[in-house]
């Protein structure tokens, strides 16, 4: 009996050690919306603003948000996504909505290198409206994102322009804001 307890203690110790180090799962299924991260972080449904909130814990993560059929069943034909990365550098955000479920996204990063969206709108979330979009703190220092590409998506109220681009580029961006169903591709 003593030996069995010894075996249990050893097994428990091994298990706890494994749980502590096996922070391997960086893919979350949040109400049918899949959030893949290349580093530790969290993704969860936030009832406060009715959004899928994505929060990386490390700098230089790549965030990929996609929608499964379950997501369409739960969210319907759109889902609001909040990128909560005020204090982190995000390497890339890829928001890939579907024909069935479009994403509407809002949030803030310290810096973001690339933004790719398909069936994705910037701004116009239910909780924050059309004046609030996706931000980048370093834009106040004049920095801009390296590349932004939106396929089938709309930038609402130039909120993306204001925060991802400097003022010089904003004028250009306003002229090419696409309507739904059109493609916007801006490379810098």
């Amino acid at each position, binding site marked *: 009996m003593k*030996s069995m307890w010894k075996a249990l203690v050893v097994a428990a110790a091994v298990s706890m050690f494994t749980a502590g180090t096996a922070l391997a799962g960086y893919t979350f299924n949040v109400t049918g919306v899949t959030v893949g991260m290349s*580093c530790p972080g969290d993704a969860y449904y936030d009832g406060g603003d009715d959004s899928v909130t994505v929060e990386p814990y490390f700098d230089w993560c790549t965030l990929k948000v996609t929608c499964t059929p379950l997501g369409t069943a739960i969210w319907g034909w759109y889902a609001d996504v909040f990128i909560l990365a005020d204090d982190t550098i995000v390497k890339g955000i890829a928001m890939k909505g579907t024909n069935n479920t479009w994403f509407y996204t809002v949030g803030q990063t310290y810096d973001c290198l690339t933004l790719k969206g398909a069936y994705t709108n910037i701004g116009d979330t239910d909780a924050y409206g059309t004046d609030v979009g996706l931000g980048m703190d370093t834009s106040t220092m004049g920095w801009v994102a390296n590349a932004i590409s939106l396929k089938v998506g709309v930038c609402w109220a130039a909120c993306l322009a204001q925060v991802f681009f400097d003022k010089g580029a904003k004028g250009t961006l306003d002229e090419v804001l696409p309507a739904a169903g059109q493609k916007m591709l801006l490379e810098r």
Partner: protein
Amino acid sequence: MNLRRLYVLIAGAVAGILLLATAFYLGRHAGTPVQPAAALPALQPAAVPAPPAAAPEATPATAPARRGAGEASSRDRREPVPPPGPADLARIRALLHSGKVDPKLLRREFWRLTKTTDPEALAILKEAMASPVPQHRALAAMALGAGAFPEATALLRALLQDPLPEVVCAAVRALGELDPAVLRQWGLPALDAGGLPTAVQAEVLMALARHGDEVAIERAMAAAVDATDTGLVTALLERMTGVSADVAVPMLQAVIAAPQGTADLRAQAFDALSDVSSPEAAALLLQYTTQQASVADRRQAAEALSSIPEAALSSRQVCDAATAETDVSTRVSLYDAMRSLATPDPAVLLPVLQAEQDPQAQAAALLTAGTLVGMGRADAAMQSWFDTDAVQSLEEMALSSSLSRESRLRALGGLRNAGTPAAQAAVARLAQCGDPLIQSLAARPLPSRPR
């Protein structure tokens, strides 16, 4: 005596496995709110959110008010949407006839129609089908496909004759979900007859391919191999969602390998490959970073590879690719890919990370080392080297005026991610450095990491 010992060993092993499984589950789902249904707090009707009364009137447009990292305002379960009542149906009808074309509002309200089989809802959808506004007709098609209306198939067949390709595409998708046999009966002869708009051709092929229709898969593959009809191949690539990996991977491989294919098409194919969750897709991307591909293709493939969370590749394979690579940008992406490997092997990665000489690539290599240290995936050798050698190099890089903004932020990121006392001390020094780009980030702590 032996039997008793055997019993003890078996009991211990079973208990160990159970504990291991529990711990693994808890580790994997840490941070995912799993609450028993009974314990859930009362919810506001989230599915039909209130108008954005709290939306700031700020002009110019800006980011949302700062929310403390790790402080969600509430973590609830999203409540299912109740079926629309008579008042809801009246409101939706009024919206339909108001002439408003707010895509989000329309999507919200039309989706609600799929939650009922009330004849009134069907009547509204029939009115939407006759609307001069194309969005109304397309949303009616979506609702017919997603709902449980007995006449749906016949109505969708009628929408296949719509003059606008966007509406026909919506009807094709809906029919593909509702009754693929009916779609096949209409779609394949229509493709043979010719004259279908490109988007509709792609929609038919991929809607049927999702159901494993061999004829459709063969046709889509033929278009990919040929790659001369750029419009059709682009339209096919845009509709890859939901197609099984054993169809998607060969098709994307065909697009990349097509002699007639353009660089833009290959870039789309690389990007689409990173969305296919299969080891074959990751292996194919790695293959294109190592074989005699053009620099542009290698960069695209490596960048796509680095965006795959938990890529199922061996550390040795990625290291070999990085060692052989002469292009700095591609090497940077390969170092990024090392961070997101499902099972990184620090013993294999360390010599490659240490050997990097180019300053830009070195910033990426050291960022990866720091991140692995912070993630608890470094071994003792990597951890020790990081603290004794890499920390100082990263601090110098973060302040170097000869490096790009990206490389300097990578260097700072490496220190922040590592979180060791030596790295934290370096970050504290950088917080006083006077360079706004580095200083302001160094002064902010990373979000808490629940472990």
